């Protein structure tokens, strides 16, 4: 509920939160450490290259507090909305950091050793797993302060552990809902795939009310640990209400010959920062990073990526597509970092911006830092509009201009959407993207 008092994260709210974790002193220690780090770290500013062009200066943490548990009626309402993919191997639904629903994996998968549960439960039941992988991968993209806050107040979150050689065909899903104004949620997804495991995963980030115009905050973290030969395909759909501030930070690790693929679909929020970092730790890995963004109104999408090649013979490919309408602003800042060990690297990075309004603004900062010589690296960034010749071609075949225009725009997105391997999800994503178009 909105109040007149100035809200913020303080010692009092932290102590209250910490009391919920009395059963896990080792985790409390981590939280305390992060709370201290949060207090001493400065807020990021545009002077930091990793925040160049960003609208972070208009954002303040003042006025936000940790979210409180939602009512039962709300829980039921949100559960009904959590149906992006009906046919799933497992589902976790969180609302305001609180667990709403836990659809467990089949007994067969459980017998094979698959662990699928809320993070808090996993901390109690499988501490050795959490201690090994939780926060093990450092994010280098500049959100240190926000991540410290995330770690200090983390409550809801999903853990998926897939043991050696186990293949899960159907997708697993995590839904993270934000319900109230001025409240902050801290979604967390931790995926661990052991050698030769295979998994398909979907994260959905959304708001209780789509038309809510008071601010909410989400600081999310996702991590993939892909073992030797593991195959992970993860889709991330961000569709918060238009007044939300969203910070999402991904830090993934690919092992030997692993295949890690992520697709991000960015639709919601007032300001949405998406950091996607992948470290190729062992030889032969193949990493794909795709993203599709529709920016309308005064939305700002701040995308930062980092492809680290710390081992030889690996491939990474990145394609980020942004369509900009109205007064929106998108930033794409990417970096391919090939360390001296990264010989025989093939790394690519492509950013395509489609400007559909005279006042939209696209910033592109595609970067390369190469310290090995036997590599193939390239990046390309283009910013332009609908091709007049293509438009003419369609119109010459009797199509009205408006429809032809729309078709070309949807064609622009289709390149990303068709990479999704699940037909149900594909259709739902198309509906979401097109819905955003017709509403604006």
């Amino acid at each position, binding site marked *: 509920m909105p109040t007149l008092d100035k809200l913020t994260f303080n010692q009092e709210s932290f102590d209250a939160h910490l009391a919920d974790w009395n059963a896990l002193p080792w985790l409390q220690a981590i939280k305390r450490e992060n709370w201290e780090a949060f207090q001493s770290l400065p807020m990021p500013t545009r002077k930091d290259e990793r925040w160049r062009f960003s609208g972070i200066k208009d954002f303040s943490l003042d006025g936000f507090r940790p979210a409180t548990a939602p009512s039962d009626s709300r829980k039921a309402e949100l559960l009904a909305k959590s149906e992006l993919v009906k046919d799933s191997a497992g589902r976790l639904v969180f609302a305001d950091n609180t667990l709403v629903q836990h659809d467990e994996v089949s007994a067969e998968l459980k017998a094979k050793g698959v662990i699928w549960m809320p993070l808090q439960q996993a901390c109690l039941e499988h501490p050795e797993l959490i201690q090994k992988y939780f926060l093990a991968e450092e994010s280098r993209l500049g959100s240190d302060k926000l991540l410290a806050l995330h770690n200090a107040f983390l409550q809801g979150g999903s853990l998926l552990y897939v043991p050696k050689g186990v293949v899960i065909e159907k997708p697993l899903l995590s839904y993270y809902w934000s319900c109230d104004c001025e409240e902050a949620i801290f979604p967390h997804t931790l995926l661990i795939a052991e050698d030769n495991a295979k998994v398909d995963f979907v994260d959905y980030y959304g708001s209780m009310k789509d038309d809510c115009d008071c601010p909410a905050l989400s600081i999310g973290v996702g991590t993939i640990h892909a073992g030797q030969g593991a195959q992970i395909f993860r889709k991330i759909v961000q569709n918060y209400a238009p007044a939300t501030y969203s910070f999402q930070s991904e830090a993934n690790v690919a092992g030997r010959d692993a295949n890690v693929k992520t697709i991000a679909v960015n639709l919601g929020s007032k300001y949405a920062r998406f950091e996607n970092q992948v470290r190729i730790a062992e030889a032969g890995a193949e990493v794909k990073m795709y993203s599709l963004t529709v920016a309308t109104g005064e939305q700002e999408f701040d995308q930062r990526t980092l492809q680290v090649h710390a081992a030889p013979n690996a491939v990474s490919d990145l394609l980020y597509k942004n369509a900009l309408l109205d007064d929106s602003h998108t930033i794409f800042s990417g970096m391919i970092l090939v360390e001296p060990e990264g010989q025989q690297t093939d790394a690519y990075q492509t950013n395509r911006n489609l*400007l559909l309004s005279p006042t939209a603004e696209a*910033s*592109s900062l*595609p970067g*390369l830092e190469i*310290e090995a*010589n036997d590599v*193939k690296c390239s*990046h390309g960034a*283009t910013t332009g509009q609908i091709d007049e010749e293509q438009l003419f071609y369609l119109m010459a075949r009797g199509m009205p201009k408006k429809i032809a225009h729309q078709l070309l725009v949807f064609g622009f997105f289709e390149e990303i959407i068709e990479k999704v391997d699940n037909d149900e999800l594909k259709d739902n994503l198309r509906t979401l993207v097109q819905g955003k178009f017709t509403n604006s």
Partner: protein
Amino acid sequence: MSTPTPDIDIDRSKGDFHFAEDYAFDAGTGLREDTIDYISDAKGEDEWVREFRKKALKIFQDKPMPTSWATKDLENIVFDDVRYYLAKGQKASRTWEEVPDDVKETFERLGIPESERKFLAGVEAQFDSEAVYSRMKEDLEKLGVIFVGPHEGLHEYPEIFKKYFGKVIPSGDNKFSALNSACFSGGSFIYIPKGVKVAQPLQAYFRINAENFGQFERTLIIADEGSEMTYMEGCTAPKFDTATLHSAVVELVALPGAKIQYITVQNWSNNVFNLVTKRGMAMEEAEIRWIDCNIGSRLTMKYPGVILKGRKARGEVLSIALANDGQHQDTGAKMVHAADETTSNIISKSISVGKGRSTYRGLVQIPKHLKGCKNNTECDALLINTNSRTDTYPAINVRGDHNSVQHEASVSKVSAEQIFYMQQRGMNEGEAMSLAVNGFVNDLVREFPMEYSVELKRLIDLEMEGSVG
């Protein structure tokens, strides 16, 4: 396949020579307000220039080092050890006979042939801070072209130069433009009158010849409506043990319909910090081209830019950088579109040899509601050895749906097949590598005037010596 890096063994003593200096004016080391007064008094400057210098000094002292984005190597410059002004005390010589003998000897060592020296009639040969040799060809004078040093330009032609001096690059643009504005001496001020097309390129040779001596040239070129000109600068410098600072400012103004082409071949010795600010302003239908080649120096930071201020203006930067052991070539380009239908093109090629590091840093800005603006950027990097390094940091900011921008960059190595093919035909590996590198930059080298492209190829061959094997 990775090749091990062999020891680089080049005879660095080539060009490693200098002569005893005796200077009539020496402002001592360090930069303070009295240094400024000393320079101003020595030159007999107008009061407004003195004020301009002092204001710039304040800005220089207040501005932090740009190490938030640039290399930390900048911190190794000890500003207090630099001599900011040295001069022989003579006026720019008019005839060859008046040039002092030891300066002539330096030209001798530079290998400028006798016949060419006469041809250097239109050349400002810069020996340390003062133009010791400066004669304008008579036909240039007849055309009304003004080709003088900055002091003469500001003192005798204020009505022409004052209007644009420090306007394209204000003193506060960055720390090093402020430094230059505070203590500039030497350089060229050029005015090309309306409709005049200068057939031969105007040239300037710069030389550094005093230990720890920062050279701060200031160049301002104004091409009036419909005129055309080409300016060339080439640098060689003798080798010293302690770091030398070089920080120039070059401003170009192309008035409606004018064309300016500015060509640089930079080959400073391996201890020089070369921190240069270069920018042009192109009015309606004007064109500015920067052709830039950086081979020497310890650290070069140079991002030639064009502000496209008038409708249909055009800007271009063609750049070649070669970074060898101990060198960092941090170069790039800036294109600021400020009018409709403006176009810009950036082509950058860099080669990293041994432990050399080359960096491309670019900025393309299409602000507000402009229409029909286009930019094309291509940057290619070639890595020769396993421990060579290259970086690319472009920034592209585009607003509005009537503009288009494309940027492409690639990093590669010379393919083993190419080398093998050439070896089959009797070349040794080094020659083959040299040929491949020359091929990589060939389409840009062709843009240089003949004598420069020959010199450039020779320089690349020299740098590639011993890089493989």
